[in-house]
């Protein structure tokens, strides 16, 4: 695919040859070859865990490669740390801006190389030049303000301006647009075009396909630590791009996959839905997402990384502050929005990140299972050990949790068994609605099949299930219906015979992107507004909606 023309070798500003890296025996990168030409914008894409960030970290000196070579500007270089890389002309702009939030904008721009006069920092000159520089990046602000008072987009521009000023030859942008507003994206793109004219190469990591097609010249697709494709961006069809990322060959969609789901499950969809969410909006993440799940139904939530799947689940249970939208459980509106209130109403969510959001690492299996149910297992505030043991033993047996006993520390269990403990925590509450965010990620094959069979069984027992999974096969075979999300919006729904990998890939590839002006209008609100901080808060709109429902 890539032309290995020896004459053009000097034309590579960055060259990665056969780089491998593994962590504790797990291969994160396997013989990766990657090259970057001056003045090109090169898209680097792949799902979670594909190895993109590992590759970036190896190149910029955060990690040492186990094998392979890295050539920068024609000579072999292994940077000891990102600062060294930056000094050599290889700058990285991370999703989270890594500047000094309390220092002024100008100081941040010139940090470490301030213009001096008589040995002291020439503040006046620094401020003047900073303002001139930033104006070119579309940031017109008082440069003496602390950086953190700027919007995230403007902060990112400052980081970018700083990177370019240090005479960068390569700029790596890790999801630069994830927190930008549309017009900031437009500015960013014009800056990137300017970089191109200066022959600066850009590595562009993003999940927003539209952006990739708009700004990138070439593309490299990674999967499971390997490069699966490199070529011209414009010549790679969307559908092909997605199937490359997900590792599914379009031609070989099988009738019956390898999951443990019983595909012949009957469906019922009458009466009041167990869960109805309408018009959910989360700042920058979700725009008007609605969905319904009936008792006994498994609804899949499809979409690429960053489409807003986890955010939807979190918004439903009130773990993310919503700007608008209502949630009804069995026809009754959920007024207070917090995980506790959702649980009381019978809606529970298995979070995606088991370690951070799920397990209580130092507590025992028993306590982790019974954590949410404690008030129900208690009389006069005293936990009844008999009732606790009853329920814990029941679930250890039912879910076949492999543990030396209920007293074992939960963090000593394997990933699959930890996941079963999490499921047990929710099932012992007898929920009506179960939201599962990547229930089988990172667990072994056996546990995976058990969890899938359990989902089936629960749905047959009348539970309403929302299934979020990056595993296409799991989604297709596990769900009766699949709601497809893209950029925080519902862009399609597959049902009945329409639930197939082909259709899902189609929906992901062809879904219309929303016109920028529509989004612009939505964002025209005041700029530096803070996220509503404490839990259980929601915007004034949400409040109004809820009132209406009460009447």
């Amino acid at each position, binding site marked *: 695919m890539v032309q290995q023309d020896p004459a053009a070798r000097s034309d590579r500003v960055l060259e990665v040859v056969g780089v491998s890296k593994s962590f504790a025996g797990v291969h994160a990168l396997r013989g990766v070859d990657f090259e970057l030409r001056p003045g090109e914008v090169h898209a680097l894409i792949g799902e979670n865990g594909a190895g993109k960030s590992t590759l970036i970290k190896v190149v910029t000196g955060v990690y040492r490669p186990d094998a392979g070579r890295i050539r920068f500007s024609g000579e072999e270089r292994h940077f000891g740390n990102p600062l060294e890389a930056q000094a050599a002309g290889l700058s990285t702009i991370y999703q989270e801006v890594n500047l000094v939030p309390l220092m002024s904008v100008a100081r941040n721009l010139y940090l470490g190389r301030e213009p001096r006069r008589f040995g002291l920092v020439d503040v006046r000159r620094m401020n003047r030049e900073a303002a001139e520089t930033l104006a070119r990046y579309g940031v017109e602000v008082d440069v003496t303000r602390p950086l953190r008072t700027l919007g995230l987009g403007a902060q990112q521009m400052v980081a970018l301006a700083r990177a370019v000023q240090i005479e960068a030859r390569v700029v790596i942008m890790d999801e630069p647009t994830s927190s930008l507003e549309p017009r900031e994206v437009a500015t960013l793109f014009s800056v990137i075009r300017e970089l191109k004219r200066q022959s600066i190469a850009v590595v562009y990591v993003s999940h927003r396909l539209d952006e990739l097609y708009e700004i990138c010249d070439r593309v490299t697709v990674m999967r499971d630590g390997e490069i699966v494709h490199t070529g011209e961006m414009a010549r790679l069809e969307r559908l092909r791009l997605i199937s490359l990322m997900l590792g599914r060959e379009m031609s070989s969609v099988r009738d019956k996959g390898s999951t443990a789901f019983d595909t012949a499950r009957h469906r019922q969809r009458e009466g009041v839905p167990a869960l109805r969410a309408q018009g959910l909006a989360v700042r920058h993440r979700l725009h008007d997402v609605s969905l319904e799940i009936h008792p006994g139904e498994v609804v899949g939530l499809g979409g690429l990384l960053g489409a807003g799947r986890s955010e939807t689940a979190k918004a439903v249970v009130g773990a993310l502050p919503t700007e608008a939208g209502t949630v009804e459980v069995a026809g009754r509106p959920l007024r207070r929005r917090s*995980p506790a209130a959702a*649980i*009381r109403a019978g809606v529970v969510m298995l979070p995606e990140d088991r370690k951070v959001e*799920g397990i*209580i*690492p130092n507590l025992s299996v028993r*306590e982790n299972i019974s*954590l949410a149910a*404690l008030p129900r297992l208690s009389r006069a505030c005293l936990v009844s050990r008999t009732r606790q043991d009853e329920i814990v033993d029941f679930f250890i047996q039912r879910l076949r949790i492999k543990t030396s006993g209920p007293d074992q520390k939960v963090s000593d269990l394997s990933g699959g068994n930890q996941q079963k403990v999490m499921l047990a925590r929710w099932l012992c509450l007898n929920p009506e609605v179960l939201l599962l965010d990547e229930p089988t990620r990172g667990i072994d094959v056996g546990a995976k099949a058990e969890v899938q069979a359990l989902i089936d069984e629960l749905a047959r027992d009348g539970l309403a299930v929302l299934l979020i999974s990056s595993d296409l096969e799991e989604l297709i075979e596990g769900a009766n219906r699949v709601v497809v999300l893209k950029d925080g919006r519902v862009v399609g729904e597959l049902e009945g015979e329409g639930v197939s990998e082909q259709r899902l890939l189609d929906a992901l590839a062809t879904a219309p992107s929303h016109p920028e002006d529509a989004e612009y209008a939505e964002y025209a609100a005041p700029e530096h507004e803070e996220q509503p*901080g404490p839990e259980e808060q929601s915007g004034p709109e949400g409040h109004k909606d809820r009132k209406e429902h009460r009447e």
Partner: protein
Amino acid sequence: MSSITWGGAALDRARTRHLLQEYGVYAALVLLFAVAVVLNTSFLSIGNIRAQLLQVTPVLVVALGMALVIGTEGIDLSVGAVIALAAAVAPLYLGYGFVGMLAVVLLVGAVSGALGGAMVAFVRVQPIVATLSLMIGLRGLANIINGNSGKPVTDGAVATLGIGNFLGVPVMTWVAAGCVALVALLVRRTTFGRQLVAIGDNRQASRLAGLPVRRVLVTVYVISGVLAALAGLMLVGYSAESDPSTVGLNYELSAITAVVVGGTPLTGGRVRVLGTVAGALFMQLIAAVLQQHNVYQSYQQIIEAVIICFAVYAAQERGTR
């Protein structure tokens, strides 16, 4: 071969570490007590034991509340000032009888704790900052209430709490023993106690599991405040006067020391009630032994510092170093 012996050694080290973490403080306490008795047999005299208990009991009561707060990954620097506030308020309400006065004093402790807890749980101020501000402000308030001078307190019931005996053991120690039992029950057996530990271990997961995170946090600081107020009353009874500018000074540090030496990790997620008791007794004992053998106070302090460092080192989990 060598790899096997290495593995065995590593395993032994892990087990030793575990034993040290779990039972080290009790063993050290027993050992130190034995040393104290061997060095000076009069250490066992009723008079000396009583004197030691009277000194350590208020610290222990405060440390119990501190252990709960630390279990939530917090810290409460305000307890010393709450002691002073309780001492200042107590004489004003003696007219309502002992029970009335006790109710008011404990209420003052509860409100102080609620203030700190609300700052932590609702305003999301870091615990150290929230309680630092209270530590400064409440002592000022106590001084204002008391007019900046010590007042004699001659009430019989308060004196009984401070220096009285029951079955040969100081009354305040009986009260403290009751507190220990209650707190131990609270931590081990109640919904609240288990939620507290879970929140200290992983707050985000606890919130997603529907635990009442804010309510638990506020309650923990309220308990700490109430226990500090109780300790304040004990100190007033002991010294038969109320002087808010000196009473309870540095008690927050003694309490934290007791908790840490007792093996409760500052990272939260675990509360060791009996360990805290042992920690408080140990620190009291070491000070007493050094004092009785005329070691300069400066050296005493250095030795205490070494003990604290060692306790923190020993309490560290495997692999986190």
